[in-house]
């Protein structure tokens, strides 16, 4: 079992000009590790992370989009796996942090922690899928994962993290949305 923040520290070494879509616990960890204008944090409704990512990927096929979604969030929008597979954006890499819990909502378990997201994504039609439980393996493979022609899906099996400070007003600051737009819109 890995820790989410450790995975994100490794991932951050490989991030350059990608849009990174992150929400809730993933966003808290990611922003602490890698604050940057190209972080897309204002999702508006739980579960829509993957759909926002698809829109960004379709809108800028010349740029790569990385989605950092939680397991509870993806469960609210499982159909998006089918939509994304059908739309087939080559530039979308979709991670799910699978910690078995609704961490931002009190740590209650998701309905079935044994759910196999990577298999669901594969069956939905993603071009490549991965499943990581070992940090060293993730570190060895992450560059390869990011280089694959998408849509790419990867489950990160992680422990529930230490208590986080959910500063939503800061995460959803309108100035962050303005900064993202300025950094992302076509030149």
């Amino acid at each position, binding site marked *: 079992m890995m820790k989410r923040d450790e995975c994100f520290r490794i991932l951050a070494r490989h991030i350059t000009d990608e849009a990174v879509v992150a929400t809730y616990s993933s966003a808290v960890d990611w922003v602490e590790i890698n604050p940057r204008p190209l972080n897309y944090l204002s999702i508006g*409704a739980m579960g829509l992370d993957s759909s926002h990512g698809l829109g960004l990927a379709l809108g800028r096929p010349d740029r790569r989009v990385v989605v950092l979604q939680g397991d509870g969030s993806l469960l609210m929008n499982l159909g998006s796996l089918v939509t994304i597979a059908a739309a087939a954006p080559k530039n979308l890499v979709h991670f799910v942090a699978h910690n078995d819990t609704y961490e931002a909502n009190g740590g209650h378990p998701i309905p079935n922690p044994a759910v196999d997201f990577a298999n669901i994504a594969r069956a939905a039609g993603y071009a490549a899928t991965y499943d990581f439980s070992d940090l060293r393996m993730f570190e060895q493979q992450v560059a390869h994962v990011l280089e694959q022609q998408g849509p790419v899906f990867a489950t990160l099996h992680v422990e529930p993290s230490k208590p986080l400070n959910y500063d939503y007003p800061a995460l959803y600051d309108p100035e962050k949305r303005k900064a993202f737009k300025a950094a992302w819109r076509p030149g």
Partner: protein
Amino acid sequence: MEAPAASRAEAGRGELSGGGIIAAIKASGIQYVLSVPDITTSAGLLAPIAHDKDFRLVRVCKEDECIGIAAGLAYSDRRALILIQHTGFLDSINAIRGVAVEYKLPICMMVGLLQHDPDKTPRQSSRYGVRIVEPILDDMGIAHHFISVDADVGQIKPAIEEAYAESHPVAFLIGRSPKQS
């Protein structure tokens, strides 16, 4: 803005051309159509749009996905129209609340009113689900336009242009099945 019932009933004897609506959508710079099929707009809008090379149609599994996808496209300076049924609109209220209203994004929705009597305004509908659509839009502060006859189609392009210029959502309520061109 709601037309008086008498004039709306008169207009209800008119027709609505799918080709006219599609021309207005194209003139508005819409490149992406995001949709779950809706029986009111199925033959007259979605079917021809699916075969129209000027559009990229993204078929989604559930209507609220459209709200996120349209937001991502808007940040990328790409214009999208969401084509759904009023039941899907109702199901997507929280996404519309967060993304379209609170984040003030140009989310453009074309909403088919299932089983609506085109001789009536949406507020006069015998269908509860149709009757509550306009009051919900009003409460959320979302601009909306009732499109039931060809004379209404002229509202589409300026409303979409305004939505993108001022970054706010807009809804078009389709009151009768558009005819296939």
